[in-house]
């Protein structure tokens, strides 16, 4: 059985992790490489690094970081945040990233998915969708959830798939940061509609939220940040309870 993946997400700024991370025994909790190593040892199935740096140095710092992560850890990782061109994707993949996640740039330029998938293969192109409930359906938002694109999330999910995205990372802007559970209604609709793997994001607060995202939301993977960073939930405990609920997981 294919295991449901558990994916910690790390926010990066100027090569350092942003959110306060409460890890005992870490020499430097702001060092993404050390955190990555720790999560990998604790049983994370993949990692996502989201770069929120807004300076001109961004690209260079990020490439160096990706190189360092790729040297150190032997599980897959995705890099996202402000990626706008095929050249930039090439640099990140060449530095050792396994996948890149594309968000605002593909709303502006949907053909970027097509070009990137044609050049590097769909397996490394993740479409990140930020959805917010708007008048009974869900619209796609960009610029950290501040700008309504008017795109319907289900239509957009289908389009990114048709253009060659290999995976969808779906964040509920309504749920993100609330710790009140995932938007399983939205997740299950996208999962039923689009035949590529779906990563659930936004709303993780408890272990049962994560189980619901899989059983009700039909997600193939669960992404979370703060519950892992602040050690509110241990990855191992989460996986044991998922397994007890009948969800296949990787327990090493």
């Amino acid at each position, binding site marked *: 059985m294919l295991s449901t993946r558990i994916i910690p997400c790390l926010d990066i700024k100027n090569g350092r992790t942003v959110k306060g991370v409460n890890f005992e025994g870490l020499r430097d909790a702001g060092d993404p490489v050390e955190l990555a190593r720790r999560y990998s040892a604790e049983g994370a199935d993949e990692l996502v690094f989201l770069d929120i740096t807004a300076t001109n140095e961004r690209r260079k710092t990020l490439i160096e970081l990706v190189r360092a992560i*790729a040297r150190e850890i*032997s599980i897959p990782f995705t890099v996202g945040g402000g990626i706008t061109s095929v050249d930039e994707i090439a640099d990140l993949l060449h*530095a050792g990233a*396994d996948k890149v996640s594309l968000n605002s740039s593909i709303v502006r330029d949907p053909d970027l998915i097509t070009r990137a998938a044609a050049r*590097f293969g769909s*397996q490394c192109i993740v479409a990140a969708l930020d959805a917010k409930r708007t008048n009974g359906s869900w619209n796609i938002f960009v610029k950290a959830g501040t700008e309504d694109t008017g795109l319907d999330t289900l239509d957009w999910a289908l389009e990114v798939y048709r253009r060659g995205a290999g995976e969808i990372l779906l964040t509920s802007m309504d749920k993100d940061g609330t710790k009140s559970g995932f938007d399983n209604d939205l997740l299950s609709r996208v999962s039923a509609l689009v035949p590529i*793997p779906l990563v659930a994001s936004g709303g993780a607060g408890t272990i049962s939220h994560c189980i619901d995202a899989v059983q009700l939301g039909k997600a193939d993977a669960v992404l979370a940040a703060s519950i892992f960073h602040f050690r509110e939930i241990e990855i191992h405990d989460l996986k044991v309870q998922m397994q007890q609920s009948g969800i296949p997981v990787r327990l090493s």
Partner: protein
Amino acid sequence: MIAIIDYKAGNLMSVSNALLRIGADFQVTWKREVLDRADAVIFPGVGHAESAMQALEERDLVSWLQHTTKPVLGICLGMQLLYESSAEGDTRGLGVLPGRLERFDESRGKVPHLGWNAFSELRDHPLLDGLRAEQQMYYVHSYYAPVTGDTVASCDYQLPFTAVAARGNFMGAQFHPEKSGENGEVLLRNFLKMVRG
């Protein structure tokens, strides 16, 4: 020295990093004289079968690969290209393993098969020394090699398919040992041991 074949399409950095971590002596190359000097070859690959075969042809590597007697380990697309053909772009492969790659069925589950999965069956093979069926490896692929006489390990997604194939000096893993944590390192170390004899 292990030669990692550089034909542009590959997951070269990941494979190089994995070999660095296990302390292997390797070179990333497509030059014939380096390949001829190598004790073994790793044939990586991600992406599309058709463009990968074109890249191999451009670098004049097809015949060398088909005729080498050195141990060859294909990884992911590299493993798939060892077969005769693939439904992906109706591509002709190297043909050192009989069989044709087929596509997973989107009506029966998500495609690609992406994530960690265990083995459904493991046969005795030096490449698999120390590995148990329940140990999971990381997969990303939309096409699969059916189970044949060359299958030494199988995995199950929609149907049983070849996870590891071996025929003489040609071996291949559908999953990414370089991305499969410690379990993947076991397989890579086994390959090194086979090379050293």
